[in-house]
């Protein structure tokens, strides 16, 4: 068994994603971290993709043909979902950080996440049926 390790440490970042005992806002905190990391990764991939333009129109068109398959479309869907969840949760954090709507923040969270979910479903229908 391990020795006692009960003090704060940056190496415990994995705890951010531990859902045990978390309330709704705590789970949203984890989601915000996951989506934030995902969107940051996507930003770099996006810049790499845009970099193909420097090699000419044909290179870009060929790359677009390459990624036009269900695997990459699902990846794009995840980016949209992450953007909506992160964005709408961010709205809640900004509003409450100004001291506005704090007593009703749980309802605000549910409404904003419902909007994010509906938006995600609309995008899913459009992306997978196009």
């Amino acid at each position, binding site marked *: 068994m391990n*020795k006692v390790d009960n*003090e704060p*440490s940056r190496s415990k970042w994995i705890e951010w994603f531990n859902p045990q*005992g978390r309330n709704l806002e*705590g789970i949203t905190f984890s989601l*915000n971290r996951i989506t934030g990391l995902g969107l940051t990764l996507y930003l770099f991939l996006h810049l790499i993709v845009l970099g193909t333009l420097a090699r000419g129109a044909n290179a870009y068109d060929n790359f677009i043909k390459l990624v036009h398959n269900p695997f990459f479309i699902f990846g794009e869907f995840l980016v949209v979902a992450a953007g909506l969840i992160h964005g709408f949760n961010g709205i809640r*954090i900004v509003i409450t950080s100004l001291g506005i709507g704090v007593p009703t923040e749980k309802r605000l969270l549910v409404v904003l996440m419902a909007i994010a979910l509906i938006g995600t479903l609309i995008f899913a229908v459009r992306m997978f049926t196009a």
Partner: protein
Amino acid sequence: MSNIRWKVTFQIYRAKGDGPVHFDTFFLDVDPDEYVLDGVERLWAFHDRSLCYRHACHHSTCGACGMRVNGVEKLTCITPIREVTTDGGTLRIEPLRNFPVVSDLAVDMGSLYLRMDQVHAKSVLPVTEAEIEKSPRDWSAEDQQYIRLSDCIECGLCISACPISATDADYLGPAVLAGAQQTGLSKDPALVEIVDSEDGVWRCHSAYECTAVCPSFVDPARRIMNLRRQVLGQRWQGLFNRKGAQNLAVEEVTR
């Protein structure tokens, strides 16, 4: 209390000195309306006198008996067993997170107490400053002279539940920021320097776990958000009027 008896398995976190961490298992017959602390005390009294844990008042005033029960922070003296397990179920009892373990379930909460002092958190306050149902301002002049204990019992449950406190030892933490909010930046402008900092009010990431586990209706998350509003108000005043500039001057002097 009732005549109903439940068989409950207690899994107790054990750690002594540099020895290995492990869980000891005990089986107890309990009344489901007993509190978790009652069970722990019986384990100590009749099963293992080397078990170390903190407790004092048994009525949620001292804040000493905070522990993690099945992964959730609880003040064990007011947590009925039926609320956290079932007949034949298990209670996994662990110390609070984010504090050094002294022994078994007892943690060293010195860092919390020092920080509460740092922000001049009040342990008693005039009733006129209390957030209670009936506004004390409606009371007679005589009644308004009373003082009352602060809501925060410094139990540390919020620090244990906070995901940011788990990774940032310098973060002031929910209880401390709530204490600063209660004091108020307008009454104690020197607090601005402490709370408007990297490890202060802006480190909170709105997980609201502190409010979820607080046994004393302090609602630290709401207080942190209010403190942010106060900080922003001070900055705004600093930009546009003399009073704010004076506050900033005080801030400079205290640096």
